[in-house]
């Protein structure tokens, strides 16, 4: 570099100045760019857009409010105002004089007030001086006392003066007010009419893009008091999990989702739409107000983020993803473990607080998923909260030898869906990782050995044999009428008449196995013994006893045995490749023994022993005992991963194998459920390294629901204050609900507005016989709405323990469940708790209650055939009415021991309110005193109980309650 000297300096200063100028300009541009970069936030443009929308909405509201103004009232007030002003103008002179007077009075008052305050403080000071002097002793005290008394006199004097002038001022003011009263009244009326309008107009002024707006929101100046600002809700007790520290949740979602709490904005374009369930969320009146629960505590995503991408929104679909990529530059982020839940998964978040809720009707997908988890028995292999105490999903195999044959069992284990496509039993063989040629032979060996072990360990129990051949036709009739169809279906899935109104697996009518083809599975004696008393074969079964007579049981057995699966008759056990079996067994023996010992052990065994040992090993490997009781496996643990916090599992801990899946929890889970063994694709693994989760052959909907449920299991710690409150009543309800689910009460009964699946069957049958649907439904098991308020706990306990006939005309039977004492108590408490009825005692039925004789007599008159004709429909002490059975009502003589007096009165007053659709008529539509139309016709239309409907109802109830007491 040739450097030339210019002047005395080493560098050319002009050149340096030029460089300096350029750099200064660049710095200015750079700083401006920096300020703009900091200023131009995504959320501000949303807030600007929202101001336009809010302006429109507010203008609309303003127009609505203005349209609603009472014009008459307005005119009246305006006239009042005008006339008041006129009359005031007429007295102008007097009014001015009064005003002048007021001014001078006020002046005097202010002076007096000052004097009074001076005198007060002087007195306080002198009192203190006197107290000090007196305390110190010496000669000063008397002088100070005199000073204090002087001040006290001044206080009294000034106060008197003050009171005097205040009275004078008030008098003048009163006169003025009197003159103005009419006018003020009119003005206040006008103001209150305009209040809402003014509020809206003020809001519109605030929303205008004017000079004030521009200044407040200008770059840099917006540090002071901007109108575009970040809105946030701080939730301290639902902290964001930052692994080793919890940070308070600061939800800034409302910065862009500005209309989230405004019902007027329902269905608006995002991000301005209102929350679709303001009754449940966000609104202050809902159970989950935003200020207490925030947004990201349920939706997840990054709480503090204020841009679309950094908030970690998750698209619902691929098309949405493409749209987001175009519009927002969206990209998946791995920097936040908690991406927002897609909308179809949102319900997963309910579970962390509502873990103890048995039913979740407001979260249908989650509830369905949890029901699937229960029905499919996921907890058999995977430890899972909520299901710690759940019973085995599959039947006990302790006595399976008396039920079916090894041949059938082999076919079943090899391919359960082949026998019954809708069985919850999953397929262990023929899946993605065991279908090649080697595995085809090995599967035969494995299934054969497992069946051998199960049948070898099965013990015999005594079976009864039907004494004669049964009648298939009457068996079918029984099957259709006695109530079996509440829980069982006997149709091939997909065939005509197969119910489609309920989901398979979890539907109430799917609670018991589909009986289609059962004749090819079980033997007749077993079936006969089973239907007569299921608990004999399997003590823990939830199948109830329908108290079938021997004849009924014989016919039913005959019918069920006639249900055949042609492909599953006369099967034989497979040819087993013994060399392969030796190999497989050796492989398992090597797990515990050295190769030499394993081979020696193998050589010492005969074929039968090999079969049994291999079977035992395989049952342990596949975890059959997770769902079935198998002798020899008592107390052995679960073989799968615990899932109780799976929704929090770090994505990095999931092995996606060689599959091309998005690295997300949900994608992993859905793949696992759809094709459980596909994670082995392309991997080289030894047989025992292969994944072993069986294939449940689920639909997309089922997979989605289960995924949502499992993703709801997180390790977040929720404070009790955020969970549903735990009251004794609530706990009683939850305990009852669990039993209701366990015994599937809702297969027959409607409980808490859901269930009664058998009603569809009964309605169809009745309609086939020519009845109307409501008439047909009169033969359905009762809706148990208000059951707790209706019946006495004692009676309910007795009834559930051993049902008695209440509606003898029904052919469907309330079965005997063999409830334990604890279960009976839980259920009676449940019913009382649901209706918030007194439990267990109530004055009306606990103390022997006698009903006033005149009331009973009046009730007797009212109920008679002359007036209300109660016994046209109701059974009376076993005497059935002459009408069609579809109109019959329960025996009123049972009421005394069964019903609650209060409920009975409510029922008579308005039956439809308690049981919509009931055929009981409403006799008293007007409850105002003296309005009852029912008079004593026999006694010349003499009034009954002063024609008071409430008293008449009480009389009727007293009469009915007294019926059974006689």
């Amino acid at each position, binding site marked *: 570099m040739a450097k030339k000297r210019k002047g005395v300096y080493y560098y050319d200063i002009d050149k340096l100045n030029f460089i300096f100028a350029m750099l200064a300009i660049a710095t200015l541009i750079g700083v401006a760019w920096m300020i703009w970069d900091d200023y131009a936030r995504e959320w501000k443009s949303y807030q600007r857009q929202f101001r336009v929308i809010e302006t429109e909405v507010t203008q609309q509201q303003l127009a609505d409010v203005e349209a609603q103004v009472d014009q008459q009232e307005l005119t009246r007030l305006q006239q009042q105002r005008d006339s008041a002003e006129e009359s005031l103008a007429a007295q102008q002179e007097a009014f001015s004089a009064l005003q002048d007077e007021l001014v001078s009075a006020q002046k005097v008052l202010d002076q007096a007030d000052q004097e009074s305050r001076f005198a007060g403080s002087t007195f306080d000071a002198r009192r203190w001086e006197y107290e000090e002097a007196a305390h110190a002793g010496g000669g000063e005290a008397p002088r100070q006392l005199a000073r204090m008394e002087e001040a006290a006199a001044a206080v009294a004097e000034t106060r008197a003066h003050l009171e005097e002038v205040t009275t004078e001022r008030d008098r003048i003011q009163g006169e003025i007010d009197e003159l103005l009263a009419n006018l003020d009244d009119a003005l206040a009326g006008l103001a209150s009419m305009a209040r809402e309008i003014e509020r809206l107009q003020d809001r519109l002024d605030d929303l205008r893009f004017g000079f004030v707006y521009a200044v407040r929101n200008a770059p840099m100046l917006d540090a002071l008091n901007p109108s575009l600002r970040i809105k946030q809700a701080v939730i301290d007790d639902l902290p964001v999990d930052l692994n*080793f520290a919890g940070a308070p949740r600061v939800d800034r979602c409302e910065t862009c989702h500005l209309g989230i709490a405004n019902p007027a904005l329902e269905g608006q374009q995002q991000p301005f739409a209102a929350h679709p369930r303001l009754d449940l969320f966000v609104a202050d009146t809902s159970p989950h107000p935003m200020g207490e629960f925030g947004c990201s505590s349920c939706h997840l995503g990054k709480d503090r983020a204020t841009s679309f991408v950094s908030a970690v929104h998750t698209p619902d679909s691929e098309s949405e993803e493409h749209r987001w990529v175009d519009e927002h530059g969206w990209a998946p982020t791995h*920097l936040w473990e908690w991406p927002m839940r897609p909308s179809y998964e949102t319900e997963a978040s309910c579970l962390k607080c509502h873990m103890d809720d048995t039913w979740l009707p407001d979260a249908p997908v989650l509830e369905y998923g949890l029901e699937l988890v229960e029905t499919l028995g996921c907890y058999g292999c995977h430890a899972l909260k909520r299901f710690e105490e759940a019973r085995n999903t599959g039947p006990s195999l302790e006595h399976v030898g008396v039920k079916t044959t090894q041949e059938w069992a082999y076919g079943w284990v090899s391919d359960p869906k082949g026998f019954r496509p809708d069985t919850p039993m999953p397929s262990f063989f023929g899946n993605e990782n065991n279908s090649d040629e080697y595995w085809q032979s090995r599967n035969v060996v494995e299934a054969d050995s497992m069946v051998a072990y199960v049948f070898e360990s099965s013990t015999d129990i005594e079976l009864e044999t039907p004494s004669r051949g049964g009648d298939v036709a009457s068996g079918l009739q029984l099957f259709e009428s006695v109530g079996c169809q509440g829980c069982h279906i006997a149709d091939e899935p997909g065939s005509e008449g197969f119910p489609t109104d309920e989901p398979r697996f979890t539907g109430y009518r799917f609670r018991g196995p589909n009986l289609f083809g059962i004749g090819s599975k079980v033997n007749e004696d077993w079936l006969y013994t089973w239907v007569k008393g299921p608990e004999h074969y399997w003590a823990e079964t939830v199948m109830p006893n329908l108290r079938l007579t021997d004849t009924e049981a014989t016919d039913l057995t005959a019918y069920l045995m006639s249900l055949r699966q042609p492909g599953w008759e006369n099967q034989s056990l497979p040819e087993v490749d013994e060399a392969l079996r030796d190999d497989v067994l050796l492989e398992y023996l090597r797990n515990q023994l050295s190769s030499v010992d394993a081979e020696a052990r193998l050589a010492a065994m005969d074929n039968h022993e090999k079969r049994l040992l291999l079977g035992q090993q395989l049952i342990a490997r596949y975890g059959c005992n997770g769902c079935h009781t198998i002798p020899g496996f008592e107390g052995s643990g679960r073989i799968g991963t615990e899932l109780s916090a799976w929704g929090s599992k770090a994505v990095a801990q999931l092995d996606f194998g060689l599959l091309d899946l998005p690295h997300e929890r949900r994608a992993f889970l859905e793949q696992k459920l759809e094709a459980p063994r596909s994670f082995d694709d392309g991997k080289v693994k030894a047989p025992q390294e292969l994944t072993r989760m069986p294939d449940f052959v689920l639909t997309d909907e089922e997979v989605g629901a289960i995924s949502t449920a499992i993703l709801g299991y997180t390790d977040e710690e929720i404070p009790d204050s955020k969970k549903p409150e735990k009251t004794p009543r609530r706990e009683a309800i939850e305990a009852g609900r669990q039993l209701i689910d366990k015994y599937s009460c809702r297969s027959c009964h409607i409980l808490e507005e859901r269930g009664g699946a058998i009603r569809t069957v009964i309605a169809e049958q009745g309609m086939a016989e020519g009845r109307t649907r409501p008439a047909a439904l009169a033969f359905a098991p009762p809706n148990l709405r208000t059951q707790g308020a209706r019946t006495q706990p004692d009676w309910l306990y007795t009834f559930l323990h051993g049902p008695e006939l209440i509606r003898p005309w029904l052919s469907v039977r309330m079965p005997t469940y063999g409830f334990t004492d604890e279960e009976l108590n839980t259920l009676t408490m449940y019913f009382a708790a649901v209706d918030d009825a007194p439990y267990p005692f109530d004055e009306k039925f606990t103390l022997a209650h006698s009903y006033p004789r005149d009331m009973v007599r009046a009730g007797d008159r009212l109920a008679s055939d002359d007036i209300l004709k109660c016994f046209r429909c109701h059974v009376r002490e076993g005497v059935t009415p002459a009408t069609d059975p579809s109109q019959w009502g329960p025996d009123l003589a049972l009421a005394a021991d069964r019903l609650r007096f209060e409920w009975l009165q409510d029922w008579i007053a308005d039956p439809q309110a308690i049981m919509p659709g009931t055929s009981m008529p409403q006799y008293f539509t007007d409850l105002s005193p003296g309005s009852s139309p029912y008079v004593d016709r026999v006694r010349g239309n003499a009034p009954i109980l002063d024609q008071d409907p409430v008293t008449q109802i009480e009389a009727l109830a007293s009469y009915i309650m007294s019926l059974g007491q006689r």
Partner: protein
Amino acid sequence: MLDSIQAIIDRLFAPEILLTASIVLLLLFFKYRKFCTQNKWMIMLILGGPVVYFALSAFEENFWIQFSKPDNLPITLMLWLVIFFVWLAMRKGVENDERVAAGMPVAEDTKEQKEKVFVWPDLIYIEFLMLLAVFIGILVWSILIPAPLEEPANPQLTPNPSKAPWYFLGLQEILVYFDPWLAGVVIPSLIVIGLMALPYIDPNPRGNGYYTFSERRYEIPIFLFGFLILWILLVFQGTFLRGPNWNFYGPYEYWDVHKIVPLTNVQLSEYIWARLLGVGLPAFWLVREIFGIILLLMYFVALPVLLARKWFNKFYVQMGAVRYGIAVFLFLMMVFVPIKMYLRWMINLKYFVALPEFFFNI
């Protein structure tokens, strides 16, 4: 074609080849320093080559992923700056050496260079201009490339790979080959102590205030070996070539978390007792590790004596026993690092001396 070129380059970036090639290139650079600093084509190759290489490679997806990480940008810049300044110093040194050989004063010692200039404006003004330029550069950088923040730290789930700050990556690389006690405590301490000791070990005033190579033909290569090979190169490796599970990945290789490489290493004692002598390992640690101990004693005690007598005799005489002892220990310690690395690559040597009884390995 492109794939196979990439595969070859990936292979060339394997640590053993990279280290060897770098040492050879550095030696060639010293040897042919005049050619390297004055030939037009060589200048273009040395200064432009890395730029062109990075620019072309940036089109490759996996290379781009690593190259474009906001954390890695300064390291790319640093690589080029290091090459540039080493080259520049060598160029000036060569020029001066030629001037000295021709009997002229060094370039820094000319009459013009010795003349005084004003602090203002000749110094302060240009400093201020540079300050502005750097400010603008950093400002624009910070606007265009936001801070590379990551997810909230999770002690139960550390990042894979877990990398030290870039300036410590050289030490982290050494951790692969040495006991943490050595790599994390002894070696860094020796680096600091060695750097502090330099002025006392090397009081030679020549080369002060001007560039030269031939007047310091031992000192410069030794220092640059330590700085360029054992520090910068290892930082580069740790940044761009060490991926998940601290495995080596070529510059065009996808960082597959599931990549598995054989990593079985064997102690020297096992080699000698089990393989060479065909007997089991002795139970007593001193007997078991005796060969390794002897070997290390020979390296750190016998070798300096031998060197003092033969090849390093000149230094021994110049420096005296104490200074020579310290210098040669530091030198041997420095050379010990690549020796150990080569042994690991060649014979899977884990430790010369393994004393798990005392939590101490060399």
